């Protein structure tokens, strides 16, 4: 299978402290749905930022074919930030991003300011922004946090369709069930890679890292 992302032996420390991730390697194939789970502070966001080119790792390197879309875990924006949903999405992808709006049902909030949206709506706009660069790899940090049941389902269907069309999707989530039931392959991260492989075999590593078992629905 054609690889669209290859990361080798990533190690990173913030301002000279202890490594927050160490020797993390992974690769993504076209159209793969990949999940990363791990406890708070285990380095998931750091890993995603390195893959998204936002921070340079201390060691290791990342190779990507095509573009990478990044959806942050959370985002703080000035209270009076005037930009509308339309402005933000077209600022990223130009007119070509209009179809992203339709796919994500964003046209109802098209002319609203980003700051006036609910937490879940903000998340969807951030996903829309990432998609409008037509990425070959989509990185999502906590895509389902703050989403209601309805939108969770909607996003899931959408991500699956996206991967069917060939986009590799990497999602980080605290929702272990969501990851284990939907990803093709998972990583259990706790500074180092504790497990990588099929979700059906991840149970033991999850138990070890989180100190408790998870029953997959």
């Amino acid at each position: 299978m054609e690889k669209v992302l290859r990361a080798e032996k990533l190690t990173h420390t913030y301002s000279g402290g202890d490594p927050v991730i160490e020797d993390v390697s992974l690769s993504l194939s076209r159209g793969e749905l990949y999940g990363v789970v791990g406890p708070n502070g285990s380095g998931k966001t750091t890993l995603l930022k390195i893959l998204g080119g936002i921070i340079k790792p201390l060691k290791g390197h990342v190779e990507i074919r095509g573009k990478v879309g990044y959806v942050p875990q959370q985002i703080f924006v000035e209270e009076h930030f005037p930009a509308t949903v339309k402005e933000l999405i077209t600022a990223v992808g130009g007119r070509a991003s209009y179809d992203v709006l339709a796919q994500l049902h964003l046209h109802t909030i098209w002319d609203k300011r980003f700051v006036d949206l609910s937490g879940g709506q903000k998340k969807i706009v951030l996903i829309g922004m990432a998609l409008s660069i037509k990425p070959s790899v989509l990185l999502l940090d906590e895509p389902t946090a703050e989403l209601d049941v309805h939108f969770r389902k909607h996003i899931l269907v959408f991500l699956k369709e996206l991967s069917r069309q060939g986009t590799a999707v990497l999602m980080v989530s605290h929702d272990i069930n969501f990851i284990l039931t939907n990803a093709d392959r998972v990583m259990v991260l706790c500074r180092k890679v504790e497990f990588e492989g099929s979700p059906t075999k991840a149970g033991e590593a999850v138990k070890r890292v989180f100190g408790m078992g998870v029953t997959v629905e």
Partner: protein
Amino acid sequence: MSEVAVLNLIIVSLTSSILGVPLVLKRLSLLGAGLSHSALGGVAIAYLMGLSPLPTTLIYTLLMGILIYTLSSRGKVSGDAVIAVLFTSGVALGILVLGDHSHSEAHLSEAILGEPFKVSWYDLILSIFLLLLTLLFILRLRNHLTLLCFNEDLAVSYGIRVDMVAYSLLILSSLSIVLAVKVVGVLLASALFVIPAMTSLFLVSGFGRAVLLSSAVSLICTSAGVIITERTGFQPGGVVVFALLLMFMASFLFNQVRSRLQ
């Protein structure tokens, strides 16, 4: 006021009001105040070394702006602390050099209060040039600027050269703050940036519209200020900033009432 002085005042406040929007959104509102005060240091150095004041102050302030931004954006020191340090050191330098000699006291009060009537063709041409550069910057890099102000991490992930955009904003702001200091003085210069921007942010949605409205607010207040100055003989800087403040309060109240009603 002479025609050159009027035109210069209008152009300088227009440029400031345009740059004010991204500055406020990038949480750099204090940068204007910091830079205008450190401009005083530039005036002092020019006086001390017998250099021509405007070019010296432009270069000095530009360097200070780059220093402030580089220190704070590299995360070494918090932005407001850096600004506070440079702020006061500029003033200290100004008072030390200009406040002491009997001849130079005039320079100090001119720098603090501005010299709105002493405007040369040279100043005007510089102001026009800066306005054109600012327009070019805003029009060409509008999308990049919006995303940079929105979230720097995201902007980086889209492949935007954030340093290039941020430093362009910084350089334009440093230069226009010096021109603003020359017209309305150290104490009021940053008002020309921050007040019209905040006024417009209370009222509209859309980055482009905010910039447009900020310029409109600035044009209206400056023109009103010029007319009032002609009639009363007050200092134009004070009058313009007072007009801006009235607009600001009106838009703040409007915004409050509107959000209560919703």
